């Protein structure tokens, strides 16, 4: 190829890339469709490269992780006051079916947000905006679904905010990122509350739950409060939360599928 032709090709491709970046930033659907096509094409390859083991040993490992996650959820609900628990139980809470999955790819691009890819997709019943949990607690939510894989946005992404309940029942919201000039240990999340005095170090933070259970079902452990920030004249009090799940060590996770509407939870149906 002549030098001039090569230069022209370079300029054309650079312009096309800039157009793609602008389209994605402006929220157009075309880049998402391109990502979906690429995920559909690369998904099976990633699964085989990741060496996802479909043998008995691996299946037992997955079942084990799912059972531990269920046990943690059940224990959290038992720890609440029974009446309050029944009051807060909604048809989509907690009793949903857990679908195990393995992480096949983690985000490595310098420009990427905090996302991981798992090896179940549309064909396994995954839909966007479902909760993803691990044995220890909340991992994140499903953001995009391809036929063979799905992308999960982790809790420490910049745009993730989870409504939570702290310890004795105080409401707040957890998000990533340090407030102002306060330093956080890497990986810690920030809890925002209205009343500082109701939070103590060591309180457990669990999800409050969203309408219809999307994107978050209630009662999942998010983390533990490690430090309460001193007052700096701001309206909301903040605290540091150490997440229960280490995002750099994710392997087996489970997607919470919504239960059918009207079935209710075991707590709501239990005879008094």
């Amino acid at each position, binding site marked *: *190829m002549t030098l001039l032709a090569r*230069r022209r090709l*370079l300029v054309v491709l650079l312009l096309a890339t800039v157009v793609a970046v602008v389209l994605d930033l402006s929220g157009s659907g075309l880049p998402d469709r391109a990502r979906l096509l690429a995920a559909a094409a690369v998904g099976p390859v990633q699964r085989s490269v990741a060496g996802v083991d479909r043998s008995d040993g691996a299946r037992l490992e997955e079942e084990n992780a799912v059972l531990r996650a269920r046990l943690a959820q059940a224990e959290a609900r038992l720890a609440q006051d029974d009446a309050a628990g029944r009051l807060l139980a909604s048809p989509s809470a907690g009793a949903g079916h857990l679908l195990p999955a393995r992480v096949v790819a983690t985000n*490595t691009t*310098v420009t990427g947000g905090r996302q991981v*890819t798992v090896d179940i997709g549309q064909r396994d019943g995954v839909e966007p905006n479902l909760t993803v949990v691990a044995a220890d607690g909340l991992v994140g939510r499903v953001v995009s679904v391809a036929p063979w894989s799905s992308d999960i946005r982790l809790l420490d992404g910049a745009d993730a905010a989870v409504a939570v309940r702290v310890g004795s029942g105080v409401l707040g919201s957890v998000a990533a990122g340090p407030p102002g000039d306060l330093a956080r240990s890497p990986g810690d999340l920030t809890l925002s509350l209205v009343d500082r005095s109701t939070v103590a170090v060591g309180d457990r933070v669990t999800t409050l739950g969203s309408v219809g259970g999307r994107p978050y079902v209630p009662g999942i452990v998010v983390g533990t409060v490690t430090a309460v920030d001193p007052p700096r004249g701001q309206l909301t009090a903040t605290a540091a939360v150490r997440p229960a799940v280490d995002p750099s060590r994710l392997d087996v996770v489970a997607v919470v599928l919504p239960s059918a509407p009207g079935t209710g939870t075991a707590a709501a149906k239990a005879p008094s």
Partner: protein
Amino acid sequence: MIPRLSLLGLLRTGAVLLAALAVATVLPRFGVPARFRPDLVVLLVAASAVVRGPAQGALLGLAAGWVVDLVPPGGSPLGLTALLYAAAGATAGLFHRGAHRSLLGALLGLAAATVVVELGGVCVAILGDGTVDLAAAATRTLVTLAVGLLALPALLGVDRALTRRRLA
């Protein structure tokens, strides 16, 4: 103006795809923490750019960046990694006169390309999250350079052998 797709071009694209899959899927599987994962894609881009010059380097960097953006989970916004790697390829290509003389020139080209990619990542992180992890970026640069020290002579040798057989 459609470029003739040579065997070497196909090999390079295949190698970039494998490198992108390896960094996203295989290395995390072995439990390598994020700051110690070398950037194999910039290694491949720089290896070709120091042989062929800035324009070819930028083209390969653009293609490699697109592959990295599309392999799930990919980057956001779509295409920004492509621009970064195109800049890295052009930077590495600037060293192609030095690379013909000695291996040190090629290593300097790889170092410049890696620094461009990591600095770009830091700038995007500042504009997006507001968080900056300079220690991780520096560690990743050093690990990529260390892997490049071992792999670059082999990659350059393969490139020259294939060119000599007129496959380029």
